[in-house]
């Protein structure tokens, strides 16, 4: 009788271990996927920029400096290594793009150009996607981290060597944001 009870308890414990372990693995993969999603959207932005510059180049002859800065920022962002550096470079790129769009406002024939407004919409959307992908990543990473820290999941997480996920620090990036004219209306 006692043997059966012990066996029953053991079975329950093992089942519980399996369930907790699986939920941690599932969270970990969601976190990884969330991180990949950010990269996908960043790539989308890198691909859009040359198109945009190519389209406005002819008309914006006198804004060569701005255009060069956008291209430079893009190339630096692509080659940036590490999360912190990447965040800084991405923010410089965002600033440069905003400045470019502020200048577009001065060229009526650019503003009414269908291709330009299409690209503008795509870039606005991409900026949003990057933001939302980061937001989603932070949410899911926070959930993963909380699961690893709370009792009793923390024992299992420790046993199998799960690691805390790094969060995307907005405050860090904000400090490095360049001073640009932000008065543009989408």
């Amino acid at each position, binding site marked *: 009788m006692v043997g059966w009870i012990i066996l029953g308890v053991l079975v329950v414990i093992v089942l519980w271990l399996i369930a907790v372990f699986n939920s941690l693995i599932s969270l970990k993969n969601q976190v990884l996927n969330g991180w990949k*999603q950010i990269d996908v959207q960043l790539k989308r932005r890198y691909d859009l920029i040359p198109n945009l510059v190519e389209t406005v180049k002819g008309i914006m002859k006198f804004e060569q400096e701005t255009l060069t800065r956008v291209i430079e920022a893009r190339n630096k962002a692509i080659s940036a290594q590490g999360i912190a550096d990447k965040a800084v470079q991405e923010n410089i790129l965002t600033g440069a793009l905003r400045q470019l769009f502020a200048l577009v406002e001065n060229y009526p024939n650019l503003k009414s150009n*269908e291709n330009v*407004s299409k690209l503008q919409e795509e870039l606005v*959307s991409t900026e949003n*996607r990057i933001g*939302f992908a980061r937001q*989603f990543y932070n949410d899911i990473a926070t959930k993963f981290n909380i699961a690893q820290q709370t009792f009793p999941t923390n024992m299992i997480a420790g046993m199998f060597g799960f690691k805390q996920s790094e969060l995307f620090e907005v405050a860090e990036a904000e400090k490095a944001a360049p001073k640009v004219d932000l008065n543009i209306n989408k």
Partner: protein
Amino acid sequence: MNIYEQIAGNRRATWIIVSIFILFFLFAGLGFDVYYGAGVPVFTIIALLIGGISGYCSYHYGDKLILSSTHARPLDLNDPKQKQWQNVVEEMSIASGIPLPKTYIIDDPDPNAFATGRNPEHSSIVVTRGLLDTLNRDELQAVASHEMSHIRNFDIRLMLLIAVLVGSVALIADWARRGLFYRSERRSSRRGEGGGGAALIILAIWLITVILAPILSQIMAMFVSRRREYLADASGAELTRNPLALASALEKISARVEPTRSINQGTAHLCICDPKGSKMGLKEGWSADLFATHPPINKRIEALKHMAYVK
């Protein structure tokens, strides 16, 4: 209430509602069988079959039925405004972490939108031309986030089942009423039945239930639908982190009083705003509350502004 509690709550509600409907179908059918006194419970079987088949079909094909009944067609991505809508839906799909729903448009000047489907993997978001023309980008994003929340919370499945089950209850009740009066005419012309008081009371209860069922099931559908709206507003705002955009979208939508013609009563509870026009949406009080598919729009806007600490 977090998202998992919402989903669990919805799953519970789905089961409760399906059980209530099964009980009703059983009750309506059994009453008929007892009344007619045939050896085999033919009517019970027929009633359960109607309920079962319509439930099954609504689960698998209900969304397609709704899409075709509203004349929804896929977006034309060469149109800048439709492309923008597609973009905000994709943004919300990233923010919520669920698969991208199919997107459709209805050529209707009245601004409205709804979501349908059975789960996030099989879902669609429909928007009217009027909504795209009326709202700016941020407001469109807010509407997309509201619809995305309906999908993520499995509201769409619950609503789909309710819509079809309410329809079949009406069908069976109607069918039962006709049969009953036909039968009682014949019966009274024959001879006084010696059933006794108890049988008469049971018959009366059955009769009342069958007659009231369509109204009661309507009220229940409305009740469920209204509760979901506040939740979808709240979790939509959680996705965009911009409750004021949804508030201003609702203000703009409610300012347009014309009814959305292409959306009929059966689909009303799926929409972001009551397609019947603004009359119900602005009224407050008990009777309006009971029959409206949506909470008063003022209350929703107030709740959203509260979230943004504007008040």
